[in-house]
């Protein structure tokens, strides 16, 4: 959720209300849905917004720290919920920097859980993560080069120890992928997993003088950021004063200047920029929207509308008075209340967060 304010921007409610709902989710899952990963603490979007690798690492872990603090403040035992926290990172094009970043993340989180939060369960120390290859590194020019970039990025993620992987399609900068493009992205993973053998060894680059040095450096730099954020009062406070957002805007601008000056090479864009044939892109059929609207109408007509109203009222009351919202959300969902209807209650109770528009 914190990454929404920092990067992805699909926020709705103000930070403190958002954190309350997050903790409700973690609390509920810990008790009622114990094998569900209660949250995906994300760096991907932070990186895509223009953060450096160190910023992605530091801000993600700082977000994680904020959630753990909030859950402990709620009264939860760290070893009860920490094993089901999960993470989500970007895999960008600087191969060894990314591997070092993943390794640093795993080592730092284990330290944070053991030393800062006194977690005793070894499963609490594990940083389990999903990785997506970097959409922002892909180009509209010579789109087939993106198949190669994605393959290298996927390899870095596996060598860095990811549990789960998404590979982007070659037409990433154009549209939602075509069937052909997404199949190549899938085959990229299958070749990696089933032909190369790289997934058969845990941390195969451990002991490499270069990778260990990079890992150490990334860790040092990331601790600096975390220290700064701690001094501000934690990530919620840092977000409220615009700190990570400003850092990211700065990094994004710097990065673009490096590309524009050719200090950073982007093959096909500022070097080897030969023409390419146009590719077929996916286009949405307008009937899809009509079909969904029709479905929505039918549901609203055939559901038990008094029960929906009552369930929304229960959500409103719990939102105002306190108490875990999840049982009420589950109940509302069972009655076919819509997401919009639930959100309207929350916007009314908590207020709508608006983008401060830093640049």
């Amino acid at each position, binding site marked *: 959720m914190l990454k929404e304010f920092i990067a*992805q921007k*699909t926020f709705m409610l103000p930070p403190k209300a958002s954190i309350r709902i997050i903790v409700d989710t973690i609390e509920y899952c810990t008790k009622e849905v114990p094998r569900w990963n209660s949250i995906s603490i994300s760096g991907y979007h932070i990186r895509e917004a223009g953060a450096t690798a160190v910023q992605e690492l530091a801000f993600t872990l700082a977000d994680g720290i904020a959630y753990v603090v909030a859950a402990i403040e709620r009264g939860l035992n760290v070893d009860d919920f920490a094993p089901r926290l999960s993470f989500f990172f970007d895999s960008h094009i600087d191969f060894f920097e990314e591997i070092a970043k993943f390794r640093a993340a795993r080592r730092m989180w284990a330290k944070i859980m053991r030393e800062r939060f006194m977690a005793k369960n070894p499963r609490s120390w594990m940083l389990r993560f999903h990785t997506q290859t970097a959409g922002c590194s892909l180009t509209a020019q010579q789109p087939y080069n993106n198949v190669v970039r994605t393959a290298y990025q996927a390899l870095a993620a596996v060598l860095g120890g990811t549990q789960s992987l998404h590979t982007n399609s070659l037409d990433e900068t154009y549209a939602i992928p075509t069937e052909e493009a997404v199949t190549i992205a899938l085959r990229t993973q299958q070749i990696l997993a089933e032909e190369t053998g790289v997934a058969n060894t845990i941390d195969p680059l451990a002991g490499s003088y270069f990778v260990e040095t990079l890992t150490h450096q990334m860790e040092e730099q990331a601790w600096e950021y975390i220290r700064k954020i701690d001094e501000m009062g934690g990530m919620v406070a840092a977000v409220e004063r615009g700190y990570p957002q400003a850092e990211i805007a700065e990094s994004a601008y710097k990065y*673009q200047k490096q590309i524009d000056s050719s200090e950073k090479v982007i093959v096909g864009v500022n070097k080897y920029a030969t023409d390419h044939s146009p590719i077929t892109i996916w286009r949405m059929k307008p009937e899809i929207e009509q079909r969904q609207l029709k479905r929505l109408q039918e549901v609203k007509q055939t559901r038990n509308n008094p029960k929906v109203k009552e369930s929304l009222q229960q959500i409103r009351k719990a939102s105002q008075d306190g108490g875990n919202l999840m049982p009420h959300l589950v109940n509302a969902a069972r009655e076919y209340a819509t997401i919009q209807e639930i959100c309207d209650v929350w916007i009314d109770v908590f207020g709508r967060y608006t983008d401060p*528009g830093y640049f």
Partner: protein
Amino acid sequence: MGRKIRILVAKPGLDGHDRGAKVIARGFRDAGFEVIYTGLHQTPEQIAAAAIQEDVDGIGLSSLAGAHDYLFPRVIELLKEKGAEDIVVFGGGIIPEEDILALKQIGVKAIFTPGTPIEEAVKWVRENIKPRK
């Protein structure tokens, strides 16, 4: 030396991808233009109103979520209704080649697609947008 060129950089619709808009806004500011950035989640009505209130010479619309073919024409329509069609409208983001022609036909003067260097956009603004007064 006349007054500086004033540009509104705007994010219409629900699209939260603001990296490019912010980089361009900053690039324009460094190039010496006066820049107002609307922030996210603007309706076409809000954009047209802001453009007129801020007395800008040009509007840069950013869209990466596919709604450009509704949102961009709507902004132009509103500017026309309010007698401000001399404000130059240009755009950027993820916009398919086929859509660019249609947008230009309804009055979007330029579309900047992925890979555009900041300087290219700056140069275009300098050459195509003059202070309205």
